[in-house]
């Protein structure tokens, strides 16, 4: 049955229309969780607000479990679900550059659009920066191409790499998340916070 678009159950245009509605839900959830505020987002790095960690990991786990169950029920063909390819070098270096951008700018791309949508000028400026960065990459791409393509590992799942089933890895991830949530709750009590 699913995924709908790759199985040609819905047309390309319907897929785009649903993208818009899924985007509305995405923006709504991000904003109402407080992700339109850079000071709330940056809180995770100082312990005073761990909303990023809680929402992010709960979200990833919910999706992971949802896909596992839907595949068990035969509702979705996991072979047709896109698994991000792994280019080890650029995944690490790109992540490091993004991490620096995160602590300086206080947003990531999705959250900056949310901030901009409710009138945060710092969010709008961050979005302008995103465009500058992407243009910068586009025009200097030949300089990075080698690094960009280095250490291609295919589309491995982390569970495969660790030699365990998706289900077992999922269970370990849930236990790890619970551990992190407990640390996060402790940190939020320890470090003072204001609401923004």
């Amino acid at each position, binding site marked *: 049955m699913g995924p709908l678009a790759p199985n040609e159950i819905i047309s390309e245009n319907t897929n785009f229309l649903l993208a818009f509605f899924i985007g509305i839900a995405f923006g709504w959830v991000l904003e109402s*969780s407080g992700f339109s505020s850079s000071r709330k987002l940056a809180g995770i790095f100082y312990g*005073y607000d761990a909303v990023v960690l809680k929402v992010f990991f*709960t979200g990833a786990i919910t999706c992971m479990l949802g896909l596992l169950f839907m595949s068990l029920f035969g509702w979705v063909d996991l072979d047709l679900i*896109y698994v991000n390819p792994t280019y080890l070098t650029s995944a*690490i270096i790109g*992540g490091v550059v993004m991490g620096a951008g995160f602590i300086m700018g206080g947003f990531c791309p999705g959250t900056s659009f949310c901030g901009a949508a409710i009138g*945060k000028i710092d969010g709008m400026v*961050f979005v302008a920066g995103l465009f500058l960065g992407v243009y910068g990459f*586009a025009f200097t791409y030949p300089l990075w191409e080698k690094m960009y393509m280095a250490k291609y590992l295919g589309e491995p799942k982390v569970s*495969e790499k660790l030699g365990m089933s998706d289900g077992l890895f999922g269970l370990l991830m849930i236990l790890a998340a619970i551990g992190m949530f407990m640390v996060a709750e402790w940190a939020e009590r320890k470090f003072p916070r204001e609401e923004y």
Partner: protein
Amino acid sequence: MSNNTTNERSRRYLNPYLGGVLLGLVLLAANFVSGRGLGASGAVKSVVATTIEAVDKDASETMPFMKEYAGSHSGSPIKSWLVFEMLGVLVGGFLSGAVAGRLKLKVEHSPKITSRRRLIFALAGGTLFGFGSQLGRGCTSGSALSGMGVLSLGGFVTMMAIFGTAFALAYFFRKLWI
């Protein structure tokens, strides 16, 4: 009094675990409908590719970045799933902010720094994030969150690199936030 205001304000945000479950369901819906997860920087990339093509018609043959882009995307670059999704994000974010009474034109910053300083760092941070998201084939949404949702090794690596670096640098930028 100030305690009351704080409680009232914090009540306006969703419980983060509930927010996480809802976010996961949205991500699940994206995968069920399109076979791919969510994204944000990919929409910026599509707009950038569209403008480059509009200025230079031959760019898709002469410019390596555009060649690479065309190889992974068919059709007009602006007509991409992520562009429609991000337009939705703007609408959804605006609606949520409107319902909660958070619509306000302002620069949010720590009282210890000026608006100007905040904006300079927002621009610098955005630029780095934009650049890094291209190198890392996606940002916190497309690479880290969506990648983790489908157990992609690259997603976990990128997530650890983003958060690890931000934690490692937090001390040096603490004046911006605390």
